[in-house]
């Protein structure tokens, strides 16, 4: 019988913190490793669908009201495979498939217009300093309620320089390494290239098409991503520490529409565990999370 099966019936209150940690790690170990084929297939399928929309839309084969929602879903789905790559879940540096890790990392967020290296470095800062008002680059999503977060996010997007953009730039500046400088420069090039793309297609007579393919999907998809990947799993974002900076939660939208974020607490505890294993790992680790005083809202 596996460790995770036995822990469900054990009384954990008598265990010391160290014993609890050893038990937690031995359970988590059961869910680590292996190639996350699901995420790899997800990355390339999503990108191919989004790229296919371009000729179909520009040639008028599909109407804009069809393009815009599909492209928005593409944008929403484009982040998480890259997130797997950011944590080197597909392969670590020096491993045979590291090229695939980097390929997924760079290509998957193309619909979102996200620079992989900047995302990776700033995301590591988020992990190191989750919920820290000064140091967590994602802290700007902190809000009292979901609706307030959405209003705040839309307001922020209406600024010519967003708070979020500034927070990411500051995080890279704080790092101060050559790698961070390069990542920042790449992010800048991405932003300028996006605008050049929009301007070029718009002046060529395809402004509405490019709005449906890129501009609107990034605005709407961005809100969705920040809501479920940043606000929801960290709400109320008041505590620091391994067992308190992230929560489990039950969403009315379920696990698929929240992109697995109901179990995001598992990701913060074990960042290299593949996303598709989070639900099973959560169920196995739940007694320990309860013993640690984690916030598990309805799940």
């Amino acid at each position, binding site marked *: 019988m596996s460790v995770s099966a036995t822990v469900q019936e054990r009384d954990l209150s008598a265990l010391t913190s160290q014993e609890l940690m050893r038990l937690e790690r031995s359970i988590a170990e059961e869910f680590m490793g292996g190639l996350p084929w699901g995420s790899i297939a997800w990355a390339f399928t999503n990108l191919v669908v989004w790229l296919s929309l371009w000729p179909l839309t520009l040639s008028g084969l599909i109407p804009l009201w069809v393009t815009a929602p599909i492209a928005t879903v593409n944008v929403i789905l484009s982040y998480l495979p890259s997130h797997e790559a950011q944590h080197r879940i597909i392969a670590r540096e020096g491993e045979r498939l590291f090229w695939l890790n980097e390929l997924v990392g760079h290509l998957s967020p193309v619909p979102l217009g996200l620079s992989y290296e*900047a995302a990776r470095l700033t995301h590591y800062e988020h992990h190191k300093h989750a919920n820290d008002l000064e140091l967590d680059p994602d802290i700007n999503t902190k809000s009292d309620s979901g609706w307030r977060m959405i209003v705040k996010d839309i307001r922020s997007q209406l600024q*010519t320089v967003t708070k979020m953009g500034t927070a990411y*730039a500051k995080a890279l500046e704080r790092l101060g390494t050559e790698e961070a400088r390069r990542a920042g420069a790449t992010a*800048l090039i*991405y932003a300028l290239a996006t605008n050049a793309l929009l301007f070029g297609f*718009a002046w060529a007579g395809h402004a*509405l098409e490019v709005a449906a393919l890129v501009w609107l999907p990034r605005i709407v998809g*961005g809100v969705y991503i920040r809501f479920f990947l940043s606000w929801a799993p960290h709400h109320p974002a008041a505590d620091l520490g391994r067992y308190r900076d992230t929560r489990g939660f039950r969403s009315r939208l379920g696990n698929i529409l929240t992109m697995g974020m109901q179990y995001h607490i598992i990701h913060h505890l074990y960042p290299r565990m593949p996303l598709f294993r989070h639900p099973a790992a959560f169920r196995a680790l739940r007694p320990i999370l309860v013993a640690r005083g984690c916030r598990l809202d309805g799940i």
Partner: protein
Amino acid sequence: MPRDSVAQPPDGGAGSDAPAAAGASLMGRLLGLLLQGMPFIFGIGFIAPLIAQLLERTLPAAAQAQWPLLVGLAIGGTWGAVANVTGRWL
């Protein structure tokens, strides 16, 4: 998303030669200017043709005329310029 990150222009750094540093500094200044004026450029570069195309789609009679583009440029340019000054699109 770090879309407007890195306002720091690249400098030559210690050990780089003077012309290279000067070139990099000039590039940095130009880049800074470009970023500062981005809302206005966005108004002209994207909003203007977007409005023009919207007008042409909704008013078929305007399809071959010049005025939709002029209206687009007027609205997009003004909107971008105001955003540039106030720091907000709305």
